[in-house]
Each structure stands twice: as structure tokens, then as C-alpha cells.
């Protein structure tokens, strides 16, 4: 085992994927000499050369569209979108081409493209640098969507995404880039849990908390705080947002009967709504209370000084836990 930051684990995953398969090529802005603005591709230009670590013009649709052409030629392009808020110019190529070409051609043309996106807020960034656009992609048939939460998962999931014959939109929680964790760099990829599975990161019996990305850490903090009050939260890291692993979720909900779904993204028509709808369909008779969402507000991502009022924190998760457990909570007075 090796202790790595999440950022270094991603770099190690890219390096290993490029060593494993010469068809893996990287495209993005500033990923060469600079090593990417977050240094995720640091050192890869030296090892693999400019033909495989390609600094691109500043045009996101161009980057993804070029990756599509490389995939037609049999390559496995890995694209870096510099920041979450910069993916929108590439939206048409992702939704109309990357996602649909396999279906359009009945599998004759494969799109094994990984679209890496440094993602979400909490770092005091400028506008367009803290977005959570994952629901757009989870809503799009033909894409797989992955969100990682720790170095070990980052290392494995990125290699799995690159090895997949399907396109994967791969979300990297940028506020965890410098968080450290143990990574087994030698473990065979075949032994890793499949990309589409959720993971129970903390077992509990009272409330199932479903989340992903950087919010997994927040949920774990909430679980520790709840334990002090004698409440046992089961925290599940969804890991995959398309598909969502409803087998694992349903198993937990049947045990706890109470559900809180948390994400940074805004609420309306978001992933939490979809997850709760499915949980309700699958587990209605097991539910003891209405499932709740803890999300960013339905506002554009706010200026940095205000983001702490937008991002769900452990207290907002605990308040939702109180509500689903019918304990006194923030709205108790209003309800009365």
C-alpha cells in the first residue's frame, strides 16, 4: 500500500492505463508541460511524449469532437475538461455524438472515451469553477457517470473507466485533490469492485445516507456526530451515477427504513430526486418516513464568500436525519 493524495492517485491511474494500452491518449488544455492546472497529468508528457499527451487549442467542443474521431480510429481517448463549468461548450459533442454513436451504429462504432472533469465547489474559486453538472450527464442515455471520493477509488475507477468500451464522464472532487489515503498500486484491476457498484462506507441501522464525491466525507463526519447522540447512520458512496446501484441501496433501505440523499448540486430535477423516486418504487413498504434531500440551493453557484451557505454541511445532513427520524429539527416550530 502507498499513501497518495487523490490527485496523485489519479495521475498514477492515468500512467498505468497508458502503460497497459498504447491506444490510450490524453487530450486537454495545459495537460502537457504544465501537467494540468491541478497537475494530475504531471510527468506524463515526459514518459509518453506529445503524441499521446496532447495539449489542445482552447476549445472544449473541439477537444471532445477530436476524441470522437480518435475513437473511430480505435483509440481510447481520455479528455481533461479543465473545470466543471467549462464542459458546456462540449455538451453537444458529448450528448449528440459520444453518447449516441454506439446506439446509432448498433455497436459497430465504440466510444471508449473518458471525460475527466475536476468538479464541484468548496475551494473558494471564481465563477464557473465550482459547478456540479452531473445530472445532465446521468440523464443522458449512452453515458456512464462516475464520481470518486477517495484516492483508492480514484486510482481504480479511472483505470476501469478508461478500459470500458463505453464513454464515461468521470467526476473528480477537486476539493479532495490533496486528501491522502492508502492505495494498493499493485492490485490487479480484475480484482477491484466493478465500476457500477455503490459502496457502504459506514454501516448503521437507523438512517441510510446516500451521497457521492466530496460529500461522502461530509456524510461520514455527520455519522460520527450522530453516533454521539446514539443514532447510527449507514453511509453509502454511490460511486456510479449511471447506472445507480439500486440493489445495494435497496438492501440498506430495507434495513433502515429512512433515507437522506445529499449532493452539492442544486435540487430541482437533480439526482437526489431520481434516487428517491426509485427508492420509493423499490422499497415503499419499508419506508418509515418520507425520504429527504439535502442539496445545494436552486441558485447559480454563488460567489466564493457565500458558498458555505450553499454547500450542504454536516449540520444540514444531521437536521435532515432528525427530520426523517421524527426528532426535533429546524422546522419543528414551523410545523407546530
Amino acid at each position, binding site marked *: 500500500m502507498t499513501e497518495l493524495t487523490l490527485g496523485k492517485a489519479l495521475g498514477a491511474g492515468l500512467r498505468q492505463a497508458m502503460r497497459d494500452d498504447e491506444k490510450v491518449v490524453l487530450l486537454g488544455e495545459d495537460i502537457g508541460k504544465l501537467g494540468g492546472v491541478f497537475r494530475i497529468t504531471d510527468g506524463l508528457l515526459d514518459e509518453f511524449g506529445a503524441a499521446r499527451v496532447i495539449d489542445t*487549442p482552447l476549445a472544449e467542443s473541439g477537444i471532445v469532437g*477530436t*476524441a470522437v*474521431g480518435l475513437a473511430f*480510429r480505435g*483509440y481510447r481517448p481520455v479528455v481533461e475538461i479543465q473545470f466543471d463549468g467549462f464542459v458546456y461548450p462540449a455538451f*453537444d459533442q458529448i450528448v449528440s455524438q459520444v453518447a449516441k454513436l454506439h446506439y446509432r451504429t448498433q455497436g459497430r462504432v465504440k466510444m471508449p472515451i473518458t471525460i475527466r472533469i475536476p468538479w464541484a465547489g468548496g475551494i473558494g474559486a471564481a465563477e464557473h469553477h465550482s459547478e456540479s453538472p452531473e445530472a445532465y450527464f446521468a440523464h443522458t442515455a449512452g453515458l456512464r457517470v462516475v464520481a470518486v471520493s477517495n484516492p483508492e477509488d480514484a486510482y481504480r475507477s479511472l483505470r476501469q473507466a478508461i478500459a470500458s468500451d*463505453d464513454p464515461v464522464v468521470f467526476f473528480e472532487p477537486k476539493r479532495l485533490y490533496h486528501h491522502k489515503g492508502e492505495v494498493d498500486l499493485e492490485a490487479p484491476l480484475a480484482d477491484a469492485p466493478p465500476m457500477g457498484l455503490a459502496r457502504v462506507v459506514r454501516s448503521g441501522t437507523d438512517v441510510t445516507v446516500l451521497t457521492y464525491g466530496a460529500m461522502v466525507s461530509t456524510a461520514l463526519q455527520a455519522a460520527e456526530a450522530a453516533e454521539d447522540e446514539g443514532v447510527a447512520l449507514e453511509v453509502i458512496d454511490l460511486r456510479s451515477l449511471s447506472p445507480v446501484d439500486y440493489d445495494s441501496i435497496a438492501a440498506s433501505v430495507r434495513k433502515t427504513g429512512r433515507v437522506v440523499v445529499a449532493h452539492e448540486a442544486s435540487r430541482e430535477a437533480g439526482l437526489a430526486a431520481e434516487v428517491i423516486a426509485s427508492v420509493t418504487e423499490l422499497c415503499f413498504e419499508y419506508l418509515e418516513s418520507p425520504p429527504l434531500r439535502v442539496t445545494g440551493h436552486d441558485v447559480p453557484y454563488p460567489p466564493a464568500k457565500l458558498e458555505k451557505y450553499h454547500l450542504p454541511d454536516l449540520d444540514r445532513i444531521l437536521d435532515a436525519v432528525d427530520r426523517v427520524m421524527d426528532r426535533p429539527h429546524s422546522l419543528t416550530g414551523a410545523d407546530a
Partner: protein
Amino acid sequence: MSPQTTPIADTAQDLELSERILAPDGTRVANDRLDPFVTDVDAAQLRALHRDMVILRRIDAEGVALQRQGQLGLWAPCQGQEATQIGTARALDPQDYVFPSYRETGVIYARGAQPGDYVRMWRGEEGAAYDPAALRVAPLQIIIGAQTLHAVGYALGIQHEKASEVAVTYFGDGATSQGDVNEAMIFAASYQAPVVFVCQNNHWAISEPVAVQSQYPIAGRAPGFGIPSLRVDGNDVLACLAAMRWALDHARSGKGPAYIEAVTYRMGPHTTADDPTRYRDEAELESWRRRDPITRLEAYLRATGDLTEEHLAETQAAADAVAKEMRATCLGMVTRPPLAVFDGVYAEPHTGLERQRDEYAAYLASFEGEA
């Protein structure tokens, strides 16, 4: 020799100001830029190009007829653009790879399309009309200009492998306004990718004349991106063949991308759902009838004594045979079963979609036994 852009400011006379070998009346004119690329083209080859164009026009007419008879949901006619499509596509090597828009019936014909390939997508049976690997043509692209970037990416792969192939992309004058097309030109130039851009300026993007897209000859934009270009009479099949050979030579020899603007005219509607009488004059249409690519080549061949009755008869019979087979194949198509709607979304199992498929299968099965 490497032809350069012909800068032109007068878009009203653009066809007359394009490079050509055959004048609209079929007389041959000397062209220092283009002639060297077609010195090998003899009467037999010219007759073959004529045959291609006649067959293509027949295929196109059959497509329109099938749509009018309710057999196709839509058809995008290419009448008038035969010389552009046949001339450029016949210059390709078999291993070159084409990224077309949706109007490239002549290009897929030249790449060996089977009769069903023309109609499978427009009938709504399949998302892609043909097997891309078989024709070395990407699926017809409906998003305007998106395919140009795919060609550049494919060309990067060619370049990476030091292969001698060229990626070719076709698009229209309307597409030149798209960001993707401009980004494709930037990427192609930055990496000196072996890609050829073929802009078919057919003067109309549905109802919008080309002047809405560009106030400068489209070929004139390419040098600003660092890409040499040529503006060619798109109704002169010999000029199109020559220009494409120049462009392919340029790209294949490692000199980077090349760009052709073929100035032609969309004689029909944008698609069978369009009504061009609402936005363009009969007089304009008539002026382009006099520049017809097929009658132009026929006039030339007739003057040289190479347009034999035998050739004309064989060509007409071949065209009728293709159209007949196209119609029969179209009418004989069997729509896939209901659960095929789920096929091919993913290459690997997706639990969410599998759940939906299972539920729908159970729903369908619930009707079994009812009559």
C-alpha cells in the same frame, strides 16, 4: 504545385470566378492549377464519371419518390451536386475515411453503398444507414458540422501511426458558421493533420442564402487558419476530381490539411419537408439549370465524339436497375422487434437500462394470449 486561394469579393458571380476545366457549355478551358491533376483522365474515365452522376441522380429521384409515397420519413436531395460529390469521392483511395453530413448520397454511392444503404436511415429502421467499416464512411451526420471534428481526430490517429491515409469531411455552406467547423480547422492546422475539408457551397442553408453565412468567399477563410484552399466550380466534375486530387496529395504527403470549396447549387428542397418556392426565385433556379453538371459533361463528350449511344443506353439501364433494387430493398425491410429499442445503447451491461428492459419485456408479455 499547390493552388492557392482565389480571393473573390463578388459573391453574385461566384461560380464564374471559380476554378474550372469545363465551362458550363461543355467547352474545355485550360487551367494551369487543375490540369496537371487530370492528365490521365481519358474518355473512358469521363464516361465512368458521367455514368456515376446519372446513376446518382436516379437514386436521388427514387429517394424523393419513396418519401412522397410514404416509404421514407424524409429524404435530403442532392440533385445539382452530382459533380461535386462524384468528382471528389472518385479521387479517394479505398483506405481513406470519410466523415459526411446527411446529403452525401453520391459520396456513399462512390464508396460502394448497397441499395438498402441509401434508405435504411431515412426509413427509420436504423440510426446508421450502413456499416461504417464496410464503406469507410462514418454514419451520416445530422448535427451541422459536428463531423468535421471527428475527421480531424481520425486524422490525428493516422498521423500518430504514420499511415498514408487521409480523413475527409464533407459539409455545407451553412456549417461554416458552426463553432465545430472553425474549431476543426484550428485543430487540423495546429497539428498539421492529414485531413481534407470539402465544403459544398450549394448556396442555401434551408431558406438562408450563403450571404447570411459569409460575406467573403468561403474558401478564402481557410488560409486565415493556415490551411491552403481552392475554390472550384462544383458543377464541373473534372475540376472537382482535380481539386480533390490536389487536396489529397497535399494531406497525404504530410503537408497538413487542405480545404476545397465546391461552388454548386441545391436544385431541390433542403429536404422533402421543405418548400423552397417560399424563399427563392424560379429565375435563379433556371440560371443553375443551365449549369447542370450532367449536361455539361455530356456536351463535352458529345463534342469529342465520346458520348456513344451504347454508353447512354447502358447507363440508363444501370440507373434504372439500381433504383429498382433500392425500391425493392426498401419495401422489403423488416422492422426490428419491440425490445430492439434497447439494443446497443451500451457496449457493456448497464443495470438501470436492463431493469427497464425487463419491465418492458414483462409488459409486452402480458399481452400474449390476448387476441
